């Protein structure tokens, strides 16, 4: 009986076999290899098992602690800014003329289409303290020399703003699509009841686009956890590691310092954080 069922389904299994093989080779194996490497000290000539030493080294390293704190700050502020601003823009325009909606949507989406590297380079040209446009204008206006990227108090807000400005278009697109899909009769009923626009937004729109909000939050958290390009190109983690993040710390250890064990340990920690943060979304998916 069981053999019959297996035989019956074998074509189906064979169809998913190539994808399953690729998944095992390129996703599952690297994860386990990363966990294994995090327990070793790796040099060109060999590997030595060191247990949890790499994790202990990380905990004791002030740069790693700083990088973790910065990553948390980035996640909280960038995700919050993205969600609130995207919600604000989308709820303001979703029911307007289609051409107007397209114009606004396109304007915010342009930075998403342009490479992150290019956008960061443009900001770098603008902010360079010696020959950038913004510090130059500040000097022309007899303000003292400003260096937003070289000040540990301003570097994080600047990176938060730049990352937010580059990414927010994606969230706006998703919200507009989601809001356009909300049944019109709900708005008509609210209008009949004399509800104000604010009430419509907070009582109808926001609750009905909750699945989109959850999706945007989770996707942005995962993306911001991996924030790297802006840091690498704009500040190099500086000044004095003030803008270093977990991903940047991982990159430095893996590729600059050749400390693969340490880098793997950071990767494992990031993997665990991502899994924990994804649980609400996975739950929601399985509920549905």
């Amino acid at each position, binding site marked *: 009986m069981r053999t019959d069922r297996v035989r019956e389904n074998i074509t189906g299994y064979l169809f998913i076999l190539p994808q399953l093989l690729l998944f095992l080779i390129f996703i599952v194996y690297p994860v386990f290899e990363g966990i294994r490497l995090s327990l070793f000290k790796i040099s060109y000539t060999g590997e030595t098992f060191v247990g949890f030493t790499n994790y202990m080294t990380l905990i004791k390293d002030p740069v790693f602690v700083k990088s973790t704190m910065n990553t948390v700050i980035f996640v909280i502020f960038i995700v919050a800014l993205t969600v609130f601003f995207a919600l604000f823009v989308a709820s303001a325009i979703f029911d307007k003329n289609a051409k107007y909606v397209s114009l606004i949507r396109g304007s915010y989406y342009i930075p998403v289409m342009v490479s992150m590297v290019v956008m960061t380079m443009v900001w770098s040209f603008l902010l360079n303290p010696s020959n950038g446009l913004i510090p130059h204008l500040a000097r022309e206006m007899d303000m003292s020399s400003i260096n937003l990227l070289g000040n540990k108090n301003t570097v994080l807000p600047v990176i938060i703003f730049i990352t937010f400005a580059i990414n927010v278009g994606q969230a706006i697109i998703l919200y507009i699509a989601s809001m356009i899909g909300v049944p019109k009769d709900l708005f008509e009923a609210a209008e009949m009841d004399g509800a104000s626009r604010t009430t419509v937004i907070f009582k109808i729109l926001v609750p009905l686009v909750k699945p989109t909000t959850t999706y945007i939050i989770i996707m942005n958290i995962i993306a911001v956890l991996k924030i790297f390009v802006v840091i690498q190109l704009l500040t190099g983690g*500086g000044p004095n590691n003030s803008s270093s993040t977990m991903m940047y710390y991982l990159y430095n250890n893996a590729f*600059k310092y050749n400390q693969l064990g340490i880098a793997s340990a950071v990767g494992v920690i990031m993997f665990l954080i991502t899994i924990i943060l994804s649980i609400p979304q996975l739950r929601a998916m399985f509920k549905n």
Partner: protein
Amino acid sequence: MKKHFLVLMTACMLLISVALAGCSNDSTEKSSGKGTVEITAWLTPQWKGVIDSSEEGADYDSFFKQAAKDFSAQYKEYDVKVNTQVIAGDQRDELLNVNLNGGTPPNVFFESVFAMGDYAHRGALEPLDDLVDDASKEDIPESIWENVKFGDNVYFYPFSQNPGTFAYNAEMFKAAGLDEYIGEENEIKTWTLAEYETILKKLKADLPKKKYSNAYPMGVFALNNQADTWNLAYLRMFGNPFFDEKGKIVVNDQAGIKATTWLKKIYDEGLTNPGAESVSSNDTNAMFQNQQLAINFTNSVLYSNAKADMESGKAPKFDMRLANIPSESGDPLTFTYVTGASVFKSDDEIKTKVAKDFVKFFSTDKELVKASKNAVPVRTSVVEEFKSEHPLFESYEANAKYIFNFTGNVAGYNQVRQVLYPELQALYTGEKKPADVVKDYQKNGNKIIEDATADSIIK
């Protein structure tokens, strides 16, 4: 059902066979009787052209392409194809580490020795002692051979050297009334520290603002580790020896603190470009070429490239000259980057042999070694041949007695570089006091050296 199964199995077999074919590691393919061997040669940007940057289509890989062609034409054992690739200096370690860990390092790497010493310590490089013949031993000074030796073995075949100095804009000096401090056209001018401070102050006060708007006296940078040798030189300005005889960093003393205090002082007084913590050496180099800086770091290759850019109209033309980094004692500070080729270890013995033969070929060929004139040749024979055309060669030679070994050939030097610039950023932003900067740098640097020495194959 059976048919479906057969189709799927065939597809899987095809996939596996394609994958296995991609993994095959046979270095030689037969063609025209001789086997063909393909090797890779990487280099960081050095000079443009085969022998001279004025050649048509001159680029950073022109020399290696020509060398590969000449080598292949005369090589009897195999048909050789050399794939050359120019990589950015600031991406070198990332690319090498990724490829080393993936088992695909280049066969040949041409770069400054100081940046590659760690790979010798890690056991990734082939010793090249068997390539060094008596003629080359005699032609290249002993001090250069010492520079490329780690332990008892030679790991780099020296080709040229790039002495590091300052470059200054003589026209900006004149405009600020600093004529008396301008050296001869082919002189490497030496100023005392007091003179240097006068120059910086006068440049700040008297440089015509209309002609040189947004210009600063001196370039400083601490964004990353690029050109950090100049930052290391500044730390020695008050007599700090930097390394002790055991290869430990000893910058945390009165002389080291004095040097960092001096750097912070000139920075705070506006005698340098602002925002050093966010400015890279590439930025200051561009600013110098755009006449926004009067004094900036340079080495012999950067200097010739800058002159070539001026001649070709790529950059504004001005009277550019050389000066030494001053010190409190009056003796100038200078250093040299010996550049040369190394061979990475490979499982393929044939490729290793061909790579070594290629290195020996272009490092000894009478015509090709002339390209070393683009920097400063390490071979006395080439210096003699070109010194009338390049009067600076004699100036560099006269300067050689002031050269200090900035790496100490210590293990972990590349990683030690990564802990200097965050400390300098903390200095420039005022987050740390000079005494704390040298204290923390010494502590972190020595920890790295200690760990790397324990892992080094060179005892």
